[in-house]
């Protein structure tokens, strides 16, 4: 599907227009950095992934075919860069294979504490937010990438599939598994009630 809003920029990029390169960076660096940070879990690696993404995008802009939007294309380069790095760091966790089937049991809910009605202020206070992001970092990278793009960055299922080179059903199934794991973690965390504010 063509993305007409990108057409002009792509033409300028492919013509080697420096200001077009700057525009591409200006419009996308923030979200690529966020993805990289969520994937890598630390600022140093995130910055490396960020730089690598744009260097690689600049090198391959001639081959960009507008089958996806520029931003999805950048997400794709960045996710690949992040996964590659993670694979080097934690090879056993980042299998290229579809991590399905093997752990059906892992999805079965065990926590049934209903934290829905806790005050929003408690659910979103700093300590809770840190716990939430920590839980994301604990996800296997293949689930984490789907969750971050779909639920944190707000990409559609289709865009996420494109960015990660996955089928729609793989995105849905990984998203489900990521969400169930996170739900489990948050339920356990909130049920301990460390955050019920003392001062009303």
């Amino acid at each position: 599907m063509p993305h007409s809003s990108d057409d002009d920029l792509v033409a300028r990029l492919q013509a080697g227009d420096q200001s077009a390169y700057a525009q591409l960076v200006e419009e996308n660096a923030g979200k690529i950095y966020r993805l990289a940070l969520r994937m890598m879990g630390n600022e140093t690696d995130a910055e490396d992934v960020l730089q690598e993404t744009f260097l690689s995008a600049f090198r391959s802009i001639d081959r960009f075919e507008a089958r996806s939007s520029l931003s999805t294309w950048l997400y794709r380069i960045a996710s690949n860069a992040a996964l590659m790095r993670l694979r080097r760091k934690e090879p056993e966790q980042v299998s290229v294979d579809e991590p399905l089937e093997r752990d059906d049991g892992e999805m079965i809910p065990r926590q049934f504490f209903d934290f829905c009605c806790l005050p929003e202020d408690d659910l979103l206070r700093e300590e809770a937010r840190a716990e939430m992001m920590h839980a994301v970092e604990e996800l296997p990278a293949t689930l984490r990438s789907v969750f971050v793009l779909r639920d944190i960055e707000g990409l559609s299922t289709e865009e996420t599939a494109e960015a990660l080179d996955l089928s729609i059903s793989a995105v849905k199934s990984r998203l489900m598994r990521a969400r169930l794991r996170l739900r489990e973690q948050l339920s356990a965390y909130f049920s301990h009630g460390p955050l019920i504010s003392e001062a009303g």
Partner: protein
Amino acid sequence: MSASDQPHEHNQDSCRRYLSSLSEYADGTLSAELCEELEAHMAICENCRIVVNTLTRTVSLYRQIPAPKMPSAVKERLYKVLHLEAYIPPGPDAPDQPGQ
């Protein structure tokens, strides 16, 4: 055999069937047919009700977490690596405030 008075043991066999539907249910993309089936089950299964509610809440909480901002130093280094120094935009906010 009667299952009339289940203890508050989660009856995994019946609940497991719905597990893979919960995420799509939370997104509102589950087919009408499965939706009906799941809702009928939730009406009699508190655990599944809680899982659906907390799953939905989990997603909505993550969507509310403010996005981390890229530090301006990171941005500057990026522009330099890309040989785009001339285009470093004047930040919308004042340059880094030390301390604070």
